[in-house]
């Protein structure tokens, strides 16, 4: 049942008339039923910089633009390299799961990276960050805009695709499983004479740290919060309400830190790639502490 065709709000609204298209509203766009332009305030059409704020309102969007810009540039560059993404039992998270068909002409990262990229691009936090930092829409609160005309929010292509965030979240969950597999693999160091030894290397820590942060980022997702229980109105009225309340509450707690996880996991994923890359290029030397043999001294050479 489409709620739109069955809304009884007009009936509930007593003597009030149903909202009709308001004069001045474009067809196909929403309408509050209030005439366009009849309640215009002083802020209408203000351009960037037209603000009465006296603090350094530009500092935060600037910092965000620099941060997102640099990390974004590095990630793009690294993804297009198509080399130095593996080092022994370490695999760069940009290239995981590694899928390298012979017909694919460029870096294998491009085949899989769209999924985590899509997850981040449609993320409710990153949306805020880049709308502010790159689109200036608005750059900061109570500040004018770069483009003050023709705003249509997330109603039209491409921004309407933001609504598919939950599908990217599903993919992110799948990738997360693979990344945890990578973490486990990063503990197992192949020995020259065959067989494995369990150990912890610098790369192990980088991957573990990164995958933990990516997990926190993914499990604090707003869409996940909705799906595990947020969509319910009354937990005590439905089957399995108790566990769903617990799940929703747990995701809600994580969700309160979504912004932090978004930033830290972005740093960590770039760092993990950089670490593997530098090891593979021979620029740095990976140290390993072996755990599987009591007689082996610490600081043995890794692969």
């Amino acid at each position, binding site marked *: *049942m*489409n709620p*739109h065709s069955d*809304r*009884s*709000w007009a009936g*509930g*609204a007593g003597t*009030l008339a149903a909202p009709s298209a*308001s004069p*001045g*509203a474009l067809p196909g*766009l*929403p*309408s*509050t*039923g*209030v005439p366009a*332009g*009849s*309640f215009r*305030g*002083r*802020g*209408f059409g*203000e351009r960037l910089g037209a603000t*009465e*704020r*006296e*603090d350094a309102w530009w500092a935060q969007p600037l910092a965000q633009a620099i941060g997102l810009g640099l990390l974004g540039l590095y990630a793009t560059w690294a993804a297009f390299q198509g080399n130095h993404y593996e080092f022994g039992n370490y695999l760069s998270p940009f290239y995981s799961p590694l899928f390298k068909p012979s017909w694919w002409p460029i870096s294998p990262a491009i085949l899989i990276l769209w999924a985590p990229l899509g997850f981040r691009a449609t993320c*409710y936090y990153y*949306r*805020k960050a880049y*709308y502010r930092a790159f689109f200036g*829409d*608005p750059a900061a*609160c*109570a500040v004018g*805009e770069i483009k003050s005309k023709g*705003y*249509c*929010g*997330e*109603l039209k292509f491409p*921004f*309407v695709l933001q*609504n598919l965030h*939950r599908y990217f979240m599903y993919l992110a969950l799948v990738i997360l499983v693979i990344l945890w597999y990578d973490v486990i693999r990063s503990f197992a160091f192949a020995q020259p004479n065959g067989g494995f030894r369990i150990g912890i290397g610098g790369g192990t820590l980088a991957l573990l740290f990164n995958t933990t942060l990516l997990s926190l980022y993914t499990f604090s997702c*707003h*869409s996940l919060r*909705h*799906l595990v229980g947020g*969509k319910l109105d*009354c*937990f*005590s*009225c439905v089957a399995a309400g108790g566990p769903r*309340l617990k799940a929703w509450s747990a995701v809600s707690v994580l969700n*309160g830190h*979504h912004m932090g996880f978004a930033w830290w996991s972005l740093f960590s994923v770039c760092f993990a790639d950089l670490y593997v890359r530098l090891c593979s290029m021979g620029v740095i030397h990976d140290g390993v502490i072996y755990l599987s043999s009591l007689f082996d001294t610490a600081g043995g050479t890794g692969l």
Partner: protein
Amino acid sequence: MTQTMVESRPGTATAQAPAGEGQARSREAVLRVFRGDASGGSEVEYRVPVAPGMVVLDAIHWIQAHRAPDLAVRWNCKAAKCGSCSAEVNGKPSLMCKTRLDHFAQDRTISVRPMKTFPIIKDLVTDVSWNYEVNKRIPPFKPRPGADWRWQQSDVDRVQEFRKCIECFLCQDVCHVLRTHELKHQFAGPRFFVRIAGLEMHPMDGEDRSGFLKDHAGIGLCNITKCCTEVCPESITITDNAIIPLKERVVDWFYDPLRMVWRKLTGR
């Protein structure tokens, strides 16, 4: 409508010492207050003696009592419970009754201007009637069939947050969709997403407002830049707790392709 430009002038009050005289005794704050109406206006400077714990609204009242009896301002409770005294203090949307003077540097002039999103009536008073027009159109609470009126505190903790709203309209003021883009004919604004969230997530409510949210409240126009949450004097996490969950409910009905196919197949 005549323009009511008022310069700082001696009041008929007993405490009509010219500005500056009291400086020796106590600290003074300098306020630049917008005076004017729909036809225009300008900022007028007032020097106000400062008492401990004083808020901007106290200063405005002092100006009314001693300098400008016709200075227009809305206020009621003076305790951040009614949401009447909304204005922009140094360009930031704030409740005047909650903005302490001692939070500003002593030598800084404090500017007080009316909310920018709404048309000016006079001085610090703006025409907020648009909000009441939009409110009328929101589908009201409708108990779901068989509601037994029993629920747990944990069911309502979430909704009670939304019902803390004091309708100060600061979120509406700061929201760029209303403020800069002037889409009041297409967009209900954060205040009403909070209100709709309070109704939608009510444990006994049986109404579905997702169609209303999409086609009449214009929730798709919100680009979740969270300024509403930043200014809320009741610390309601408007964006994360009200708007985004509502957006997700709209996705359930209108944007989730698998769900749409599922509904077609099952007829639900």
